[in-house]
């Protein structure tokens, strides 16, 4: 009888403490899971919506019909300092607002990620020189995808890291063309930048679980970031200039934050 009661009590304990049990003893070796990165573009405290006018500093306004940027070299750091890097040939993505669901959310799913408790995420904005210099080697289909998506100049010039297309209004300049196609320029300018974002709560990647990291991107920071730029002063057309492209690249380093993490 005692044994039965003990077993019943033990079962109850397990039932009630499963959620808070200490995972330090959990053996995750060899286990893998998926992690989903949810990108949500906004403008300050507003949702980003195509063809909606947003006001930047100095009262210039803009509205966009295309909003895309490249993300690559995603790495995750766990609570023990181990770094998981997604396989290089798959580790480049286009975040395209046009691909979003109705709520404006764009999902990138990383498969077969080492099970661990991750505390930060690192990724690059654009394409690094090493990847660029590989040419078509080891790029999978990305080269052709980028071309179809309008994210590639001629090969000598390289990738466009961003595609912000629309119009801007500044004083008497009404609805003039706005095209921010910043990228590295061959090997002459390196505009690749990396950001590391702390996760407000651990992303616990486990087999058969859905882990989601909600990343907010504040598009206003592209124009009003570390440096506030004026469309009317040469920033309405940003393509290959050694002067303007690094400013946009540096501004974009500060547009991302992890809002929250979902562990199912």
């Amino acid at each position, binding site marked *: 009888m005692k044994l*039965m009661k003990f077993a019943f009590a033990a079962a109850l304990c397990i039932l009630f403490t499963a959620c808070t049990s200490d995972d330090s003893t959990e053996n995750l070796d060899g286990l893998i899971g998926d992690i989903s990165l949810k990108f949500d573009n906004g403008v300050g405290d*507003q*949702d980003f*919506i195509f*063809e*909606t*006018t947003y006001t930047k500093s100095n009262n210039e306004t803009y509205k966009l019909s295309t909003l895309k940027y490249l993300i690559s070299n995603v790495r995750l750091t766990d609570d023990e300092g181990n770094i998981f890097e997604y396989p290089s040939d798959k580790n480049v993505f286009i975040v395209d607002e046009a691909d979003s669901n*109705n*709520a*404006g959310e764009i999902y990138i799913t990383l498969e077969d990620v080492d099970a661990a408790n991750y505390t930060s995420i690192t990724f690059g904005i654009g394409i690094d020189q090493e990847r660029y210099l590989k040419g078509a080697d080891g790029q999978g289909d990305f080269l052709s995808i980028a071309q179809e998506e309008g994210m590639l100049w001629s090969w000598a010039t390289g990738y466009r890291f961003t595609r912000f297309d629309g119009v801007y209004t500044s004083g008497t300049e009404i609805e003039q063309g706005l095209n921010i196609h910043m990228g590295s320029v061959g090997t002459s300018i390196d505009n690749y930048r990396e950001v590391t974002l702390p996760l407000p709560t651990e992303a616990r990647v486990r087999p058969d679980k859905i882990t989601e990291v909600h990343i907010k991107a504040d598009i206003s920071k592209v124009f009003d970031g570390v440096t506030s730029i004026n469309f009317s002063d040469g920033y309405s057309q940003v393509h290959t200039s050694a002067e303007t492209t690094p400013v946009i690249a540096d501004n974009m380093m500060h547009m991302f934050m992890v809002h929250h993490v979902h562990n199912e």
Partner: protein
Amino acid sequence: MKLIRLSILVGLSFGLTHCSDDVGPYTPINLEVEIPSNFPDLTYTLENNPVTDAGFDLGKKLFYEGRLSVNNSIPCAFCHEQAFAFTHHGHTLSHGVNGEIGLRNAPPIQNMAFQKEFMWDGAATHLDLQPIIPLTSDVEMGETLANVLAKLKKDPEYKTLFRRAFGESGINAENLLKALSQFMVMMISSNSTYDKYVRNEDNVQLSPLELAGLYTFKSKCSSCHAGELFTDQSYRNNGLPVNPKLMDKGRYAIFEDENDLYKFKVPSLRNIEVTFPYMHDGRFQTLEAVLNFYDHGMTNNGNVDPSLLRPDGSYGIDLTTEEKESLIAFLKTLTDTEFLNDERFAEY
């Protein structure tokens, strides 16, 4: 040993089923719907569905019941959380079954008994019929009334609860909807700082900033956000840029009348502090963003409300920095913490 195990089982089953033990005839007790002295008359016809203790309790249970949805896990309360005046906290567009995303931002549930029509586009003209829309929508709860009733009929507890509330007629669609209405009719938010101030209760005063906001509100906002419900219950196009992804034509969807293009119901502003994000598609995350929009974000989409036309031909409401600050201070006096924490409406 057997005795102990048996007693554990008895204890457990008592804990789970005590609600359905009393199977005898029950006479429901009428609950009074108290109309706040500063409120208009009820629009809901209580005579057709008097609120009772048993009906209210059943309505509340149904409001939190996942089986009203096709995957048995999305109750009404999923998109209507009490702490946020029964809105879907933090979501621009509300989510439904199977990860589906709706077209609009879930509006608050409060003071429903004073509303003439429901939903952002007025698709429901009677409170009793409103729940059919989310219940059957593929992007919300994805069910059918018949299937929900079939599920509930299999549950002895619901058999008892329906009989307690509605007698012999038991589980049917009418009683399901009436119970939900009884719960919602009681959800009256009327005890904000503003209410106590206008009713001269408890010596509640507004600060000079809040009073300045009230003054600005009366001169610049209250023609639409009228009266003590803070809505004239009309449908208006407020010049929001149309989201090309959603192409939501608003009330046009109801009658396909060109005059209704991009019109949405003027929302109440009660508990506005906690019901973010704002507008029918939740595009604004803060009240500052909303007021900035009214000041300089409107576009002429062809059917903007004439009341928003400025003398220079543009659309908008001029608001100074000071006016915005005081308006927000005033709007926060509409927060009713008693309602947001009222245990009568809470799941647990």
